């Protein structure tokens, strides 16, 4: 208290970061502010006829997706970290490949394959020489189809966090369990899972948020979820205000999950006994168990990655485009890559700064801001875009255009802001969990040795967090590459990204033309994932 002057100087740069965070939050605030506005008669209609259905469908969807993605995410992580089986070496990194496939693209390929006249049905009909309209597969355009699509594209988030947690689990504890007579099953359910629960829930929170904010896949499958309701209210009733109120309710709902995740995370701190790492001695599986383990890990990879890639390639071959490497295509390619890298760097930097500050500050304002910003991940892209447009227009119309002759709306800044808000949660999750693994004692020792915080940041934290920083960067990039609805409306003139190009064709179900940019989205998405997988391979305890 007595050193207020000193404190001001000392904290001025923190104030700067606080301000920048504040700017990031304004678009979210614009959306939420609708809650304090007027509620018009469209609410009566929503409540009387459709709202219950939207809520029910969304709940069913996240319930199904949670179960399925937990089974495959946690199950495969456990098998990979503790057992030796055929093809394990490449499965370990291949399991994250589905992250490169946006849910909407998997949805398109599913209908392309399994509709009555889809290629999978035609192939089977050819083999079995059966009736022209006999369908081997049930209709996928329903909530079950949607559950499969989301589970198999999003489970890698759980796989990534769970695997990390399993690797870092104290071997001594597991061995003690074994000595005390616990079976493999009991070790998994009574020791490993409870200890890894915070990490698993952190991954699950991302899966749920992404599922709830999706529009493309649920629209394609005609599943009336809450997001569909938001769009119908806006587009069909011309009622943006009510649509934003609905979006705010969705945010409130999601914040429950985020709070849950926070609470779980707080429990995390005890579970790392950092000095007791021991190289895991892997149990070698034999016979049918060997095959079963392989099949279990191969299934999500097959459905979430190999199947869509085969189908898209099939389309691309059918449509030999003369403009495969056209100007537009090349430009959208470059735009996508550069935007992804820029957003990745900015997001990671801020997540890093923020978590660094949080380590020395107990002030709850920082946590509040970070919490709000993390919610951005679950705002449907188009609604977020409206928040940004309203915010920028306010700036433009009031001072920027008159004073500086500058227009922010429709510039690249809006796009970047959207990406940062949309993917901050990913960056924060990686950096935060990285920081949790750094013992506070390290900071205390450094501080007592009179090392400045600045130096701690660069010389202690950066090297220790190398993996987390890279993970954050790569996750954000792979997210930005896939982002569609906000990009569509915020972009400058004549500015395409690969996702936009794909959408423009796919929206008219011109899948052959959509195939080329779709493949490129996946291929570019594979680059960060390739690096991620290298991180995974190198991230064995003992190596860091």
């Amino acid at each position, binding site marked *: 208290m007595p050193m207020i002057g000193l404190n001001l100087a000392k904290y001025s740069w923190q104030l700067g970061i606080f301000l920048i965070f504040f700017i990031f939050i304004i678009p979210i605030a614009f959306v939420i502010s609708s809650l304090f506005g007027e509620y018009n008669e469209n609410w009566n*209609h929503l409540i009387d006829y459709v709202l219950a259905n939207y809520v029910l469908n969304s709940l069913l969807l996240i319930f199904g997706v949670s179960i399925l993605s937990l089974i495959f995410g946690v199950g495969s992580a456990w098998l990979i970290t503790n057992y030796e089986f055929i093809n394990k070496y490449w499965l370990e990194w291949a399991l994250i490949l589905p992250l490169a496939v946006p849910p909407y693209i998997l949805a398109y390929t599913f209908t392309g394959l399994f509709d009555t006249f889809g290629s999978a049905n035609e192939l089977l009909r050819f083999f079995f020489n059966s009736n022209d309209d006999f369908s081997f597969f049930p209709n996928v355009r329903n909530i079950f189809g949607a559950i499969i699509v989301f589970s198999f594209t999003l489970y890698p988030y759980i796989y990534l966090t769970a695997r990390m947690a399993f690797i870092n689990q104290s071997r001594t504890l597991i061995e003690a369990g074994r000595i005390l007579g616990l079976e493999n099953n009991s070790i998994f359910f009574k020791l490993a899972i409870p200890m890894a629960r915070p990490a698993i829930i952190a991954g699950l929170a991302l899966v749920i948020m992404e599922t709830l904010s999706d529009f493309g896949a649920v629209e394609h499958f005609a599943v009336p979820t809450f997001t*569909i309701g938001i769009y119908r209210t*806006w*587009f069909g009733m011309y009622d943006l205000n009510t649509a934003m109120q609905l979006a705010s309710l969705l945010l409130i709902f999601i914040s429950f999950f985020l709070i849950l995740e926070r609470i779980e995370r707080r429990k995390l701190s005890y579970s790392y006994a950092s000095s007791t790492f021991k190289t895991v001695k892997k149990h070698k599986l034999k016979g049918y168990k060997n095959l079963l383990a392989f099949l279990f890990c191969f299934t999500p990879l097959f459905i979430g990655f190999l199947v869509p890639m085969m189908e898209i390639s099939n389309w691309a071959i059918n449509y030999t485009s003369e403009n495969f490497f056209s100007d537009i295509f090349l430009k959208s390619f470059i735009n996508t890559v550069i935007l992804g890298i820029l957003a990745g760097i900015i997001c990671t930097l801020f997540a890093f700064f923020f978590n660094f500050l949080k380590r020395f500050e107990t002030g709850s304002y920082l946590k509040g801001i970070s919490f709000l910003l993390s919610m951005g991940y679950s705002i449907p892209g188009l609604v977020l875009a*409206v928040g940004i447009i309203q915010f920028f*227009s306010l700036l433009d119309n009031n001072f920027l255009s008159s004073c500086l002759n500058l227009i922010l709306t*429709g510039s*690249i800044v809006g796009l970047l802001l959207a990406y940062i808000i949309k993917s901050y949660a990913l960056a924060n999750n990686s950096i935060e969990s990285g920081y949790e693994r750094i013992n506070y004692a390290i900071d205390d020792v450094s501080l007592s040795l009179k090392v400045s915080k600045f130096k701690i940041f660069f010389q202690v934290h950066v090297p220790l967090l190398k993996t987390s920083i890279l993970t954050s960067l790569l996750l954000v990039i792979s997210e930005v590459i896939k982002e569609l609805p906000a990009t569509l409306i915020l972009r400058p*003139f004549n500015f395409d990204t690969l996702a936009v190009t794909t959408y423009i064709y796919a929206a008219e179900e011109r899948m052959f033309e959509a195939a080329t940019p779709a493949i490129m989205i996946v291929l570019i998405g594979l680059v960060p994932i390739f690096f991620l997988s290298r991180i995974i391979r190198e991230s064995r305890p003992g190596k860091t």
Partner: protein
Amino acid sequence: MKSKYSMKFIVLFIGNLLFSNFLLVDEEVNVYTSRHYDSDTQLYEDFTEETGIKVNIISAKGKALIERLRSEGANSPADVFITVDAGNLWKVQDYGLFTAIKSKKIESTVPKIYRDENNEWIALAKRARVIFFNKGKYSFEDLENLSYEDLSSENWRNKLAIRSSNNLYNQSLVASLIARYGEEYTENWAKGLVKNFSRKPQGNDRAQIIAVANNEADLAIANSYYLGLMLSGKKGEKQLSAGKKVNILFPSQKTNGAHINISGGGILKASKNYENAVKFLEFMVSEKAQKHLVENTYEYPINSKVKPSKIISQFGTDFKEDSLNVSSFGKFNSAALKLMDRVGWQ
């Protein structure tokens, strides 16, 4: 080597940015459009070649673009707004964002019912929402005088394919019925219609036509030009052979005529290139551009000197069009959507 490439990337990227609204070149026209057809891009290039005016494009969903226009207000860089549904045009006008298009050329080319009375927007092309049936299953005699109203009768139980009520074209069709008959009648009609669905609404218009070709449904309601696209062969063998199996029936020929929707555009109040915008719209309804449109998108021309593409005119050109003013689609859009919610049209 490496740095040379990355330099090239950066230069290209910055070049890309410069063509956004930061750099205002003299001769250009900025277009917000919800038509994303490749063939349109070619049309814009033709316009630039003819006039030297560069066309800058942002394409996105109509409603989202309207919101962007509204927020940008007087600072909006947009000169022209183009969309595929009359309802959207009505909404932009309702927000007071359009300004009158002063052009003798346009007035003499575009029929009065296909432009606003103050010329704040004009149609660029027409499409009819029609009935498709399988040639192998029905003949024209079987379906004579079939009207939209008839489609909700018990005769067609579980026999119709139509897409979701999320779709603007369906909202406009229902809005047109509300405009004519009022909500009560239309709600009863829609109740019957939903009972007649052969499956949960899914896919786009083309998917409905394919359902009829494959005998998954007896009748499909879809926009006329989709069949043109299928028959053109541009969409692959499968769609071509499906297209050959179906025929178009223009509904309500003895009563109000087939439901017509438009693809259209207008000039924005905030426009900083008004002259160029007028030239652009004049070009869009010119014979040359209209010919290009009809041959690529298979819509019906708005310029009477141009004939529809042969692919689509083989199904008839002298059908009766519904003369209801298309601006009523926008007026009753919200009512239509709520009505569809009430009757459980997904």
